[in-house]
């Protein structure tokens, strides 16, 4: 009981997630800055930003729905934290896992986006309204390819559990090669999920200031930003657990391997962010339905054929 509680709260649960989220934010910002020929922030910058926001005055717009406005950041953060329990960090197995937890993780992953949409909607500001409409529009574009790309590997692994898929693919590493199209689809759709360039039109600074969260400030904004950082870690962990399931069997080494894999995914996401201009939301939707979704469908068909071949 105590051990499980420690696992959930401290390692590899919430505390680890929070610390690692800040480390990831730092690495993301530093690499982004170095790619742009800038110095970049010092290592403590994400923590300093978080603490500064905690100490700032929280302003709630007069027109906003007070209760929803205050509760949404908390729901967003808790959804991300809850889903992290089902993602393997140490030794290839998650803190808890059951058959079908992949669906739960994907469901929880949707909640921060919905929260950001509702937060913008309930702020009643004109910029936040447009931002939240864009958030939702974009969600309908990347959600389908992202889910299909993450579910396709489960057809071969014949399990709907993240831990199960990780252990299946680590036992049969060659099957990973089949899922390479899904890996790239998930990376690109994940970039859309995280609302990073080139898919950052929901928070386009130069058009709608900062989109859905423009009215948020102080502690509430700090929690929202924290949940976004955690989302980044969650997406990176999920992609590396499903598509890069290489393990040694030694716990410490596996943990180091986990860090290496997630950071590799993060670097690809950062590189994507720094190399492209922001797409318009209609161009983003077009791109997702025209290229990403067919790629994911082809992946599923491929996996079904191979699964049939394996059964015979």
């Amino acid at each position, binding site marked *: 009981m105590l051990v499980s509680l420690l696992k959930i709260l401290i390692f590899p649960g919430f505390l680890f997630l929070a610390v690692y989220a800040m480390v990831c934010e730092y690495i993301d910002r530093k690499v982004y800055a170095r*790619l742009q020929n800038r110095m970049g922030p010092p290592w403590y910058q994400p923590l300093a930003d978080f603490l500064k926001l905690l100490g700032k005055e929280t302003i709630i717009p007069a027109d906003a729905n007070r209760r929803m406005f205050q509760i949404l950041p908390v729901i967003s953060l808790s959804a991300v934290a809850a889903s992290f329990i089902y993602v393997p960090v140490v030794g290839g197995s998650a803190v808890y896992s059951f058959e079908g937890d992949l669906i739960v993780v994907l469901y929880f992953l949707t909640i921060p986006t919905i929260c950001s949409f509702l937060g913008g909607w309930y702020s009643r500001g*004109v910029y936040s309204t*447009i931002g939240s409409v864009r958030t939702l529009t974009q969600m309908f574009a990347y959600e389908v390819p992202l889910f299909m790309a993450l579910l396709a590997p489960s057809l071969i692994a014949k399990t709907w559990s993240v831990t199960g898929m990780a252990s299946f693919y680590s036992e049969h590493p060659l099957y990973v090669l089949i899922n390479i199209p899904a890996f790239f689809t998930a990376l690109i759709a994940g970039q859309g999920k995280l609302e990073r360039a080139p898919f950052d039109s929901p928070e*386009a*600074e130069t058009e709608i200031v900062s989109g859905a969260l423009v009215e948020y400030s102080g502690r509430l904004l700090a929690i929202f930003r924290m949940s976004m950082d955690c989302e980044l870690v969650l997406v990176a962990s999920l992609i590396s657990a499903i598509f890069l399931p290489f393990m040694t069997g030694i716990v410490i080494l596996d943990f180091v391997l986990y860090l290496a894999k997630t950071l590799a995914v993060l670097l690809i996401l950062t590189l994507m962010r720094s190399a492209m*201009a*922001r797409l318009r939301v209609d*161009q983003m939707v077009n791109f997702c339905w025209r290229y990403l979704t067919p790629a994911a469908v082809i992946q599923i068909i491929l996996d079904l054929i191979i699964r049939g071949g394996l059964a015979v």
Partner: protein
Amino acid sequence: MSRKGKDNRIVLPIGPQHPSLKEPASFRITLEGEKVVNAVIGVGYNHRGLEKACESRNYVQDLYLIERVCGICSHTHSTAYCQGIEELAGLTIPRRAAYIRVIVAELERLHSHLLWLGVAAHEIGFDTLFMYTWRDREKVLDILAEVCGNRVNYGINTIGGVRRDVDESMLQDISKMADALEDQIKYYLDLAMTETTLSVRLAGVGKLSYDDALRFGVVGPVARSAGIADDIRVTEPYAAYDEVPVRPVTDTRADVLGRTVVRIKEMLESINIIRFCIRNIPDGDIAVKAPLRIPAGEVISRTEAPRGENIHYIRSNGTDKPDRVRVRAPSEANWRGVKHMLEGGYLADVPITIAAIDPCYSCTDRAIIVDSGSRTEVMDWQSLRQYSIDWYKKQGVDTASAKVSAKEYF
């Protein structure tokens, strides 16, 4: 703020304060979904009364004011002003001074276009290009500081020539910088042509066709991107441009991508002009002595600013102060087309469309009094004084006892 009418339209205020605007201006964008159906543009938040201030200072003091019309293209304004006064006073500046003016003008064009490219990249969320171009702009600013002593307001022009000479080592530094910059600019040209996210964001955005460009009277890169080969350096050469070969860069795309390509190619052209000037700069004096009192007359002086045609009108009355100075910065001509460019486009393209004319708000802003009534009258001094007394009486102040005559003012 969001006023939703029965036709489900949203009015989005961009400005007076907004992250995409570098200076205050107001754009009220009426949206139907993401489509812009109407745009109302309001400028005038940055009016400084420079033209009026010029009338109460002498010609040399005015030079300092005119230098500060624009922070980016200060040289082109002081060139236009000096040229005008030199014409009124009948001065001919030394050739060496004319060449130095051209070198500084082209360096200014380089830094202005690099700055614009960075701002444009930032508007479409491409911050890496923004950082790259501003890094390269630093090289140009360093050279400007070396040649003129200042990074921004160069202070090199004076009535009758220039204030500082260039020596051999400066010319060498300039050509070294030009060589380094040329490779970078070629890379940006390649990037604008080949990078997919750039071209999908820029192509077809903010269209202003050849006919519309003529109708709205736009100038500079906006006109040249629509195929109008209008360049004051060619059509009415000033300074040393009559000896320097200038090829006006035009394009037929007539959209933001066209404007981007025109500006990048103009930078390459500027580098060629600078190289020609360095090779052919004559020896000699850098200034002739200018009189303090300028003979009565009026003059229109035109230069090609980085943003387009810049017009100065100066009227002198034989004293050491001008009677009237009128500055028509290029942005004032380019504003007219912006509403046409915005309408029918997407909200996401509004910032880049506005940025594509390279607007300079404070150069453009002037006080305009819109009289809603149709009453006009000419007031003489007495009736104006009576009007003022009546106005103050209404405020509770009686100024009728004060003895003031018109003579004390003139």
